[in-house]
């Protein structure tokens, strides 16, 4: 529908512009703060125009936070989570949509319900499992009396132990299970016409072959969308890495590291707050997620335009 309503257009554009300012202002302030010296950043009133110390601040913040290895860690975890989530979501949805078996709907709804239980809600049990990934099995042995039985028969005390704390596995695995991704994939797979599945069967392609040759190429844009969302999600993880990683020097992630730069009583010890460094570090930490969004956005658009049926 085409309407000519100049006044309404103007009003909508004003609202749009206002929203843009609301969103951009903090980022602008962060950028300005990152370009000032310690004295300038703490002077009142707040400086609104950039200074000259951006490069120096970036360098200082980088060294201070040991960002080199931390960026690598964050990247490993984020990529690990993205790959894990996509793989898991894809094969789970594949099984749910294309195979008929008992309890299919039940399984789907159970996965769906976990949407309501994000990591933060179940962080204590998740931590307990991460501390010993085999503890559920140990509990099973204990409850059923199997452990006692094995002990009585063979004299071996069964004590299962698999510690995930302070490891990439521990960082990645609990973040991988994903209801969102499974749901997204399921909805996409449901749009695949039955005839296509049957054509592949007639062509002699087995289920995995069909998944690999047909479904995955067709779901490229889905993968791009999911990857973007999940990369940003994983990159921004704070609480979980904070808990599970005590060996910060080896496994620290940038976002956790960044929080250390934010001046408070503990970090400055009552000294002048170093906001310029915190903001400089923030700018650097922001770069990868933004880069991914910009990069992947082209995929979305192509996926939306090129809808060949």
């Amino acid at each position, binding site marked *: 529908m085409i309407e000519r309503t100049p006044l309404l257009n103007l009003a909508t554009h004003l609202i749009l512009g206002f929203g843009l300012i609301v969103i951009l202002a903090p980022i602008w302030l962060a950028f300005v703060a990152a370009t000032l010296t310690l004295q300038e950043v703490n002077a009142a009133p707040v400086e609104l125009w950039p200074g000259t110390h951006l490069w120096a601040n970036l360098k200082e913040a980088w060294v201070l936070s040991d960002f080199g290895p931390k960026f690598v860690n964050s990247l490993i975890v984020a990529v690990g989570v993205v790959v894990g989530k996509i793989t898991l979501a894809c094969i789970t949805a594949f099984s749910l949509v294309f195979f008929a078996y008992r309890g299919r709907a039940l399984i789907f709804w159970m996965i769906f319900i976990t949407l309501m239980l994000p990591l933060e809600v179940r962080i204590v049990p998740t931590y307990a499992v991460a501390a010993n990934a085999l503890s559920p099995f140990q509990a099973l042995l204990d409850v059923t009396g199997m452990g006692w039985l094995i002990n009585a028969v063979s004299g071996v005390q069964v004590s299962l132990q698999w510690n995930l704390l302070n490891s990439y596995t521990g960082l990645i695995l609990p973040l991988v299970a994903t209801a969102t991704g499974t749901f997204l994939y399921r909805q996409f797979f449901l749009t695949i016409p039955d*005839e296509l599945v049957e054509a592949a*069967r007639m062509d002699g392609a087995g289920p995995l072959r069909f998944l690999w040759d047909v479904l995955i190429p067709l779901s490229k844009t889905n993968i791009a969308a999911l990857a973007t969302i999940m990369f940003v999600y994983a990159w921004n993880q704070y609480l979980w890495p904070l808990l599970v990683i005590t060996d910060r020097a080896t496994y620290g992630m940038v976002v956790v590291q960044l929080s250390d730069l934010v001046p408070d009583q503990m970090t400055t010890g009552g000294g002048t707050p170093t906001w310029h460094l915190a903001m400089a570090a923030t700018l650097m930490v922001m770069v990868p997620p933004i880069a991914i969004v910009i990069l992947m956005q082209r995929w979305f658009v192509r996926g939306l335009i090129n809808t*060949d049926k």
Partner: protein
Amino acid sequence: MAEISIRQVGKTYGKTTIMQGVDLEIHDGEFVVILGPSGCGKSTLLRLIAGLEEITAGEIAIAGEVVNNLEPRERGCAMVFQNYALYPHMTVSDNIGYALKVAGVPKAERMARIEATARSVGLVEFLDRKPGQLSGGQRQRVAMARAIIREPKVFLFDEPLSNLDAKLRVQMRHEIRRIHNAVGATSVFVTHDQNEGMTLADRLVIMNKGTIEQIGTPEEIYEHPASLYVAGFVGSPAMNILPGTVASSGLSVLLGDGQAVDIRSSFKARPGQLVQIGLRPEKLSITTKAHGLLAAKFQFFEELGSARIYHLEIEDIPVGVVSDLKLALTAGEEVGLAFPPSALHVFDGPSGRSLARAEAAGESRGTDASTTGLSMHGRLL
């Protein structure tokens, strides 16, 4: 040799029976068309042959081997789907060659075969395109090329032409028949379009509510429909049906308005039996009321160019007549209808089954100028 034997095949979903007791022998190299309205089970039968659905009763054998428990790929069938079912992300070439790729045919051989197949259906210049860039007819060709390249024993077509426009449909029909003749595989073609059925088939199978109503050559089906259902389904415009009762003499049928239709002793009719008389519009001719075998009221006509369809009524029952004569008639005018005795079909009223002809089959069938016919001609215009 790929004859298909379908023996007492049935299909049930849970407690719903879709199909039962289907028996059908398809000879090697034959083109069989399964014809029926939607929901009659024709597609299901095709999918049972293909192996896309599990058979719940009876057995299907292809080339003498029972295939009930074989995967589709092991049955040697290729299928062309209604919506083409091309892989949208693959080029035409990849689409055609996918089955070979799955089968592990080396690339060089594969490309050669793709090229040859594409040439046979006129697709060579489109090999690098995606299905989305092709027209409906071209997509249909890709779907057919994809089936041909596997050199299957059996071709299965699931209403492949129903998404094409009328002109293209006729063209693709010829194409399919040409390919069938060239390849020589057994073909089973499912459609609800009687024109496709009549023109393509060596033999037609008419299905109704999950059972086979009649099997025969298109000519047999047209000339000697086994039931009212078949008679109404095949032929365009549809056969005229007039309900009546067999007279006490057993030699004529009394229609609702008291007119008598002479059926002679051609049919095994019981006096008092409720019957339906069938007359094909193409076999009727309009004459004066005095000369006709039946009296009817003219309503209007449709001009087809080559012929006209005259719409008449016999006691409120619409009757169509196809004739290439340009008659000047006014609405409501009383006319007579004439027809050769061989054009007369009589069906049992309640069951709809065709009444058996009393005399030797060969004589009255096909030849219009039988002895009774001659005397009739004297009464024509």
